[in-house]
């Protein structure tokens, strides 16, 4: 008797846990009442704890935007800081619902480890030089000495690029990023190269940050974006369209400040569809119709998030560059909501 009871209880518990795991992530998230979001352990401007102990950054704000879309409440996110090694395991094992951790979109990752829902930041390898050199383009760097890390793709990209440009250069490489920055600061080389988003953070470690500029050329492709598990289309849609809603809002000129006014007065059909006054685009993906309104109302549009975390109003002072909207010469482009 007791034995069968135990077996039965165990069986039910097992069935329940299996059922719990196989239901869609969106339903799971709604049931548990929060999103579990994987972020980096500390990357300036993308995800880092601030002095009050809250998480801040572009990747962090993206997860908050999803929470705004689902729960109308940006606090319903729990952040799991992950190292580069454990991030994919955490996603696959269900420990996190979305991985928003400056992860480069590559083919193997997109086909094996999960699915990329968009590109929050188009990163790529860039160059920093002293303003006093009077250089405005990387193509003028012939004969320069370049500081970089040893044994990374950075070094290989550098070699490829200078070879295709038929320019001479001298590489000065170090094991650690701190050493690279120190050597550049001490004048041991003319150029510092690493991923562009990193260059702006490194610039703040220099003794006179204002005397250095980042050149416009980007020589490698590092599209960084949020990732979800494969085979869960409903959840994938929510994450993907949260990203598109951020872009669409910026493109339509809807900001945190004017979103209420826009919702009340705008006659623009694009804005009406975006803010849920026309159609049922929100309910169709399992959210409320004012999902995008909530995102903009609570978080702002993509441009606002960018400026707040990494843009000109932040200490990093990264210019929009290729991360501008397509209509302003950048790469950020959202399909229409209709």
């Amino acid at each position: 008797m007791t034995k069968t009871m135990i077996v039965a209880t165990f069986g039910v518990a097992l069935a329940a846990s299996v059922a719990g795991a196989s239901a869609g992530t969106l339903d799971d998230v709604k049931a548990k009442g929060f999103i579990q979001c994987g972020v980096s352990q500390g990357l300036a401007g993308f995800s880092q704890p601030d002095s009050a102990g809250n998480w801040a950054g572009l990747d962090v704000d993206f997860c908050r935007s999803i929470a705004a879309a689902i729960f109308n409440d940006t606090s319903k996110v729990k952040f799991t800081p992950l190292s580069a090694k454990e991030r994919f395991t955490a996603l696959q094992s269900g420990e996190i619902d979305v991985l928003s951790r400056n992860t480069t979109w590559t083919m193997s990752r997109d086909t094996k480890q999960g699915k990329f829902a968009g590109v929050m930041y188009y990163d790529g390898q860039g160059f920093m030089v002293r303003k006093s050199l009077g250089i405005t383009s990387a193509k003028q760097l012939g004969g320069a000495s370049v500081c970089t890390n040893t044994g990374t793709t950075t070094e290989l990209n550098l070699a490829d690029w200078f070879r295709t440009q038929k320019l001479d250069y001298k590489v000065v490489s170090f094991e650690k990023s701190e050493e690279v920055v120190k050597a550049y600061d001490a004048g041991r080389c003319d150029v510092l190269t690493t991923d562009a988003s990193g260059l702006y953070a490194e610039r703040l470690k220099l003794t006179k940050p204002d005397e250095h500029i980042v050149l416009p050329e980007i020589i490698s492709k590092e599209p960084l974006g949020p990732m979800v598990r494969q085979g869960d289309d409903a959840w994938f849609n929510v994450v993907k369209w949260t990203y598109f809603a951020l872009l669409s809002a910026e493109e339509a000129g809807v900001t945190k400040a004017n979103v209420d006014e826009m919702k009340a007065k705008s006659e623009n059909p694009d804005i009406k569809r975006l803010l849920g006054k026309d159609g049922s685009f929100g309910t169709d993906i399992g959210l409320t119709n004012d999902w995008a309104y909530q995102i903009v109302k609570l978080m702002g549009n993509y441009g606002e998030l960018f400026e707040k975390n990494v843009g000109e109003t932040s200490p990093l002072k990264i210019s929009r560059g290729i991360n501008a909207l397509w209509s302003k010469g950048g790469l950020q482009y959202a399909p229409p909501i209709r």
Partner: protein
Amino acid sequence: MTDATQHSGAYVRETLAEAREAPGRFFGPIAWMRQHLFGSVIDTLLTFLGVAIIAWLAWQVIDFAFLRAVWTGENGEVCRKEGAGACWPYVEAYWKQFVYGRYPIEERWRPTLVFALFAATLVPLAIPSVPYKRLNVFLFLVAFPVVSFFLLTGGVFGLVEVETTVWGGLLVTLIVALTGIVCSLPFGILLALGRRSKLPIIRILCIVFIEFWRGVPLITVLFMASNMLPLFMPAGMEVDKLLRALIGVALFTGAYLAETIRGGLQAIPKGQYEGAMALGLGYWQMMGLIVMPQALKMVIPGIVNSFISLFKDTTLVLIVSLFDLLGMIQASLADPIWISPVTGKTGYFVAAVTFWVFCFGMSRYSQWMERRLATGHKR
């Protein structure tokens, strides 16, 4: 002697000469210095060299931490200037996170209370002259862990539940180190006894266990516990990350301690065992009353060595995304508001000083304990 008796009495002293102080060349500070510091040309050179190095190092530290330091400021801007030393406003803004991690601000009284309880139970335990040791041991080993567990995790008695993922800083460092120390010692003793057991199954099990854990690096253990375990376990079942790390650290240190203690056991002369058996003591009485006290006393330096290395190894939990003191400091370095050429140095300086204080404290206490317990063996 013979000379003195032959000569006339005028040259003979009748009283003993006053004892004079030994010449300054042999006693006193100057003599000590002459002997130990300036004994020869090479000694003199080495002395000057040593003093120069110490003075230079001390000057560097004082210069960085005090003279050139920036003391006030709202953000990293003040530290982004040439020749700035330690950036203390950054530490001021962040020190609470260094201690508590991201523990919710309004709940921070709970870890504070745990720190206080820890001090209140440990300090009387560490001072031999304080009475009620049995009660004290009970409080420290049973009551304190239970109370702290409920205080820190919450969810009962109207306390808000606080997940271990937001714990951090010194709190996590101390939890990992303390749990590791407290759990691994009895575990190590049992393993050491098991390895010397006459029962083959127990002996083989202990040997396999010890050799397995000594054969893998701690970082692998932590990595397996945090990354591979979830893949093996049924979906939806989760064991807390901090708990996984705690178990990993305790088992790991236990295996090392077992070998240290086994060294002590082997140094006990056979006569001690035979004497105990002749008295009619059973196995556990013999071990508990005769052998272990002597063996443990002998390996105090080795045990404390393991504890100190465990304390420093706690920094490895960062790879499983638990933010100990060092992890918290490193994470804070990414805050763009505070980034500056000296922020990193300041953060690491704070980490180094904190770790040194704890490890040096442990080391001094163990040396004092060793001297106190030195009843024989020392010749």
